[in-house]
């Protein structure tokens, strides 16, 4: 028995040693080494955008013989997890798409290399550029803009003036409008700010409201502390007002899962939604649709800027080909192709001319104007991912009835501790 056990042990150890020895050979070749570059996108299941990207890729592949791009699509909700896992195994593809606010973190983590493009990026919407420490690491072909949508007939029935880009609603006007709409008795909650949304939606949608009050997520000068910004008096005023919308019965603490659909089904009077819903809403409501800017809550209307962008990974074996592809994808006709397919705002005026509705005077041009005039980038710091999750928690707490000052103080404490424990995200 002992001999048999010893034999078993010896053979197991031999197999383990052999495996470990072979493992030492190291991982396979880096992406792009054989002329085939992989492109990762978050659009699995989103056929219009994925098809448009594939068309651009096919056109690039047909236009030259030096490199071939291969598209791999992932579901959006889990895309970041896939990227982080691949980065940990040093297996990132040459080309990745990135949600704009994550660019500084990915640049800091050395996933991305600085862009070296021949395209003139000064003509792009600022919100389509992913910058960190004065260097551009990513560029997008489109942006999206949030707006308030309502039926003109409902506003007229409540005697409410429609907001315009020149004369947005003030806070008092907005509160009065909600009271008038509520008084019509047609809706349980006249306002739908998409409070069922989770994840990045929360800072994207609600931090601009906080900024319009005069607060911010962090001190943008150096981005080393949120103290005095996220827990400042204007920030607390935002929290109090935001919770007040629920307490006064203007807004559900948790809205329906699909705010746009609820609005089109006339379950709300005003919906806070993005440019992506504009075409669908216009198709359903025609001229009765009012697309209005966000509310001026004190320092002017603000909306979130920065959507999905493209970058080149540090591990790419053929960065020149990756940059060539990006230059190709940033040609006006290619920007227009993606914007048309997705109903998003084209990154340049030249491309906008090619997208029906976004040309000057077009029905969707107003959304591009919102983006140009009101968009505020989320803080360009590697700490943003953490700030985002803390703001999401604080907002959920405030919506659930927590004291705003306490909830925001807690978020500030955690954010500052995170920045400190990462040595300021400076190296």
């Amino acid at each position, binding site marked *: 028995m002992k001999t048999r056990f010893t034999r078993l042990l010896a053979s197991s150890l031999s197999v383990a040693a052999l495996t470990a020895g072979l493992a030492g*050979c190291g*991982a*396979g070749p880096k992406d792009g080494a054989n002329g085939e570059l992989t492109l990762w996108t978050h*659009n699995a299941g*989103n*056929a219009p955008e994925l098809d448009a990207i594939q068309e651009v890729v096919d056109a690039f592949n047909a236009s030259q013989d030096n490199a071939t791009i291969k598209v791999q*699509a992932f579901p959006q909700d*889990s895309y970041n997890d896939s990227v982080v896992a691949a980065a940990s*195994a040093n297996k990132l593809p040459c080309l990745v798409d990135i949600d704009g606010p994550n660019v500084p973190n990915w640049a800091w983590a050395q996933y991305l290399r600085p862009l070296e493009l021949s395209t003139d990026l000064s003509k792009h919407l600022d919100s389509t550029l992913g910058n960190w420490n004065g260097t551009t690491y990513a560029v997008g072909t489109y942006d999206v803009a949030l707006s308030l949508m309502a039926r003109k007939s409902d506003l007229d029935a409540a005697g409410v003036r429609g907001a315009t880009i020149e004369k947005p609603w003030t806070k008092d006007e907005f509160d009065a409008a909600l009271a008038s709409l509520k008084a019509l008795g047609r809706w349980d909650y006249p306002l739908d700010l998409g409070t069922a949304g989770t994840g990045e939606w929360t800072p994207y949608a609600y931090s601009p409201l906080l900024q319009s009050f005069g607060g911010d997520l962090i001190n943008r000068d150096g981005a080393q502390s949120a103290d005095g910004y996220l827990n400042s008096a204007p920030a607390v005023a935002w929290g109090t007002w935001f919770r007040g919308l629920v307490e006064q019965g203007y807004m559900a603490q948790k809205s329906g899962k*699909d705010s746009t659909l609820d609005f089109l089904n006339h379950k709300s009077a005003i919906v806070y939604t993005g440019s992506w819903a504009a075409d669908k809403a216009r198709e359903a409501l025609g001229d009765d649709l009012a697309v209005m800017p966000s509310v001026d809550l004190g320092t002017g209307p603000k909306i979130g800027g920065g959507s999905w962008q493209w970058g080149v990974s540090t591990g790419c074996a053929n960065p020149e080909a990756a940059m060539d592809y990006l230059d190709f994808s940033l040609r006006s006709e290619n920007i227009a192709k993606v914007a048309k397919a997705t109903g998003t705002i084209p990154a340049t005026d030249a491309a906008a001319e090619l997208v029906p509705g976004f040309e000057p005077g077009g029905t969707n041009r107003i959304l591009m104007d919102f983006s140009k005039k009101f968009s505020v980038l989320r803080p360009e710091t590697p700490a943003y991912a953490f700030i985002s999750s803390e703001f999401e928690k604080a907002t959920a707490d405030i919506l659930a009835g927590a004291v705003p000052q306490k909830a925001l103080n807690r978020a500030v404490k955690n954010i500052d501790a995170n920045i400190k424990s990462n040595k300021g995200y400076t190296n």
Partner: protein
Amino acid sequence: MATILETKTAKVPVAAPAKRRRIRSLSAWTVRVLLGIVFSFPLLFMFVSSLKPDAQIFGDLSSIAAFLPVGNLSFENYSAVFDRVPAARFLINSIGISAVTVVLGVLINSLAAFALSRMQLRGKGIILTLIIATLIVPFETLALPLVWWVNQLPWLEVNGFSLSLTTGWLDTYQVQIIPFIANAFSIYLFHQYFESIPKELDEAARVDGAGWFKIYSRIVMPLSGPAIATVSILTFLPAWNSYLWPLMVVQSEELRPVMIGVQYFFQLNVSWGEIMAYSSMITLPVVALFIAFQRSFVNSIATSGVKG
């Protein structure tokens, strides 16, 4: 008077238990039926909604119609599922991955448990304790290091008639199977079950000239049906529901399992009917498997004294 009293007192112990039993049985069945309804309603809602257009799903929510196949019913959502997701490919992948994991899992874990239960190994108690101790480490904490590790592992690739040594298991089928074959809970469950099989049977077989493998394959395993069924289910479920791991290690769409497909539907313009149709498609095999093995599953849990 005394007689009457005696009669009354004599009747009580005879009649009451029967009546009480009936009441108990009735209430037990009522509770069971209610529980059955509570647990089957989500499945019913899912399947019924998969046949309705989105507007009707939301319209029916406020009434019992949400659970009834009424209104505008069709299989449109099912055909739309195949437009959005390579559902057939994902289903085949999941069936293959789960089946291989189950078969190899039953074999490897039962062999390990057999050794620990039957062989006279020094320190086998400590080995079993160490194996069980691994249960307290959540998979999520091991996931990233495991990704790094599997990317370093070698593999023999078959190209036609030649073999070549490659490095890295990422984006393969084996990376979705091999790390999940050995399972501490399965070893423990098999071990507990094997302990309940009389060792005299081994001795009798040994007298007849049987070796360890023959005892394992001809005596112990044929008597371990419930344990095999339980381990099969407990191995199948996580393999079928696997989400985080394939998300991290599989990049090619043609290698993905079904659960990744669920996220394909949560893009812009969410269609709940399609989500329900896809959910019905991927739930059906699990429900069928559970129904097929439920008696063995319950028996094994009951006899091994383990609650999963």
